[in-house]
C-alpha cells in the first residue's frame, strides 16, 4: 500500500488516488504549427524511468485535486509531493 501526502489533505492511502502518468510531458504550445513528431512525443512516447519519476496523481476520492508526486519506480519510495501548478526548482 502506498501512502501519498496530498498537499491539500495530508497523508492518505493510495486507494483514494488515481494515477495520471508522467508529469514531465508538456503539451505543444497552442496556435503553433506542430509536427507529427511533437504530437507523438506528447501523446505516446514516454521515458518510463527506472528510479526517480515525477508523475501526476488525482486525489479522486478526496479533494479531487491533481497533484505531482516524485516517486521511485523501483522501490516505491515517495520523496516529495507538489500541487499541480507548483514550480519545481
Amino acid at each position, binding site marked *: 500500500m502506498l501512502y501519498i501526502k496530498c498537499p491539500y489533505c495530508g497523508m492518505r492511502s493510495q486507494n483514494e488516488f*488515481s494515477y495520471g502518468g508522467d508529469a514531465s510531458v508538456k503539451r505543444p504550445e497552442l496556435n503553433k504549427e506542430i509536427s507529427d*513528431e511533437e504530437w*507523438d512525443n506528447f501523446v*505516446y*512516447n*514516454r521515458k518510463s524511468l527506472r528510479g526517480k519519476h515525477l508523475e501526476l496523481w488525482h486525489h479522486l476520492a478526496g479533494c479531487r485535486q491533481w497533484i505531482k508526486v516524485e516517486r521511485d519506480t*523501483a522501490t516505491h519510495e515517495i520523496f516529495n509531493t507538489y500541487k499541480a501548478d507548483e514550480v519545481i526548482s
Partner: protein
Amino acid sequence: MQKYSIFNLIKNAFSNHENWDLAWKDPTPKEEYDVVIIGGGGHGLATAYYLAKEHNITKVAIIEKGWIGGGNVGRNTTIIRSNYMHDENALFSEFGMNLWRKMSQDLNYNVMFSPRGIINLAHSDAQMNAYARRGNSMRLNGIDAVLLNREQVKEIIPMADFSENVRFPIFGGLMQPSAGTARHDAVAWGYARQADSMGVDIIQNCEVTGFDVAAGKINGIRTSRGNIKTKKVGLCVAGSTNILAEKLNMTLPIETHLLQACVSEPVKPILDRVVTFGAGHFYISQSDKGEMVMGGDLDGYNSYAQRGNLPTLQHVLTEGIAMMPFLSKLKMLRTWGGIMDMSMDGSPIIDKTHIDGLYLNCGWCYGGFKATPASGWTFAHTIAQDRVHELNAGFSLNRFSTGHLIDEKGLGTKTWIS
C-alpha cells in the same frame, strides 16, 4: 543432443539418471556473432531457435541479465489463445496457435500444451452482441469461436455464480475451444535446449551496459562480460525495454507497469477451462497441480518493482469471488509480480528501427506468453531478412504517428481511464 524418449529414459534409469547431458551449455561470450539477441526470455529463446531452424543462422548469442526462466516467461498465467477481433492480432495469434499445437514434437520437450478452451463471460445483452461480433470476426479469420448462452455456460462451469440477484449476472459467453494453457517453464527450457543444440550461445548473468552505434549502424554491444561485435542486435527485453532504449537515446510509446498473478492452495479438479470475468479484469484456470491460477489488472502506476501491492490484488480477487464464490474458501499459496511493457494501444511492436541492424520486439502488455512462438518466428524473419513479415507488418513502431493503431479493446497503459 540426447533425444528425450521412453527408450532413453529407461536406458538412463540403469545409471540412476546421472549421465544425462546438460540441457544447455554455459559458454563464455565470443568476440563476434552474426546476431545478438538481448533477453533470454521466451521470445528471445524462440527468436534464436527460429533463426537457426528457419534461416540457418547459428552464430547467435542470447544475452541474459539473469537466468533462463527467471523473468516473465516464468511469471505468467500460461494462457494461450487467439480470440482477437482485429486482423493483425488474429492472424498473428492463430499462426502462433499452429506452432503451439506441434511445439512438444518440434522441440522434443513436453510443453504440456492443453487446449482446454477459454470462455469470456458476458454480463449484459450489449456484451453478448459485442462477443457475437468478435466471434464472427474470429471465424472469418479461420479461428474457432462459439457463442454460448447462459444455460450452455452453466453446463460447462456450474461452479460460477448463476444466482438471479448478483450484481453482474452471467448472460452467456464467447468460447474459443482450441485455446488453452501450457507449462511455461518447459517452453523456455525446450527452446533453450534446442537453440543451444544448434549452436546458439546462451549467455546468462550478463548485463548489457551499452551499444556501439556509428553512422546510424550498430557495430556491437557492451556487456558486463566484455564487448561483443555484431552487425545485428535484436532487442527482446519486454519489461526493461525503456531502460535499454534510454541507452540508445530512443523514447518509445511504452510505459513499464507491474502485473500480478497468484495461485491458491491445490485442490481437486474443479475447473477444466480458462474463464475470464466480463465485468472487470479477472482470469482463472486450474493448473495440473490443482492450484487455481488467477490474475487481473495492472497495479496501475509505473513500476519496476517485480512485486505487487495488495489493493490491486484485493480488487482482482473481489472480482474472482463475485464470479466464482467458492474461491473465498481457498487459501492463497503464492502471489508474484512481473514487469510489463505496456504499449499505448495494447498491441506489440516487432519492427526495424532507425538504427541499421537494431531490431525491436516489445510492448507485449498482458499477452506475451501466448505470443512466444509467433513472436520468435516473425522476429527471426525480420532480423534474418532485414524486413518485416506480413504477419508482423501491422506491429510497426511508427503506427502511433501515422494513426494505424491496433486498439483491440483499450488495454494500453491508461488503466485509469477504464
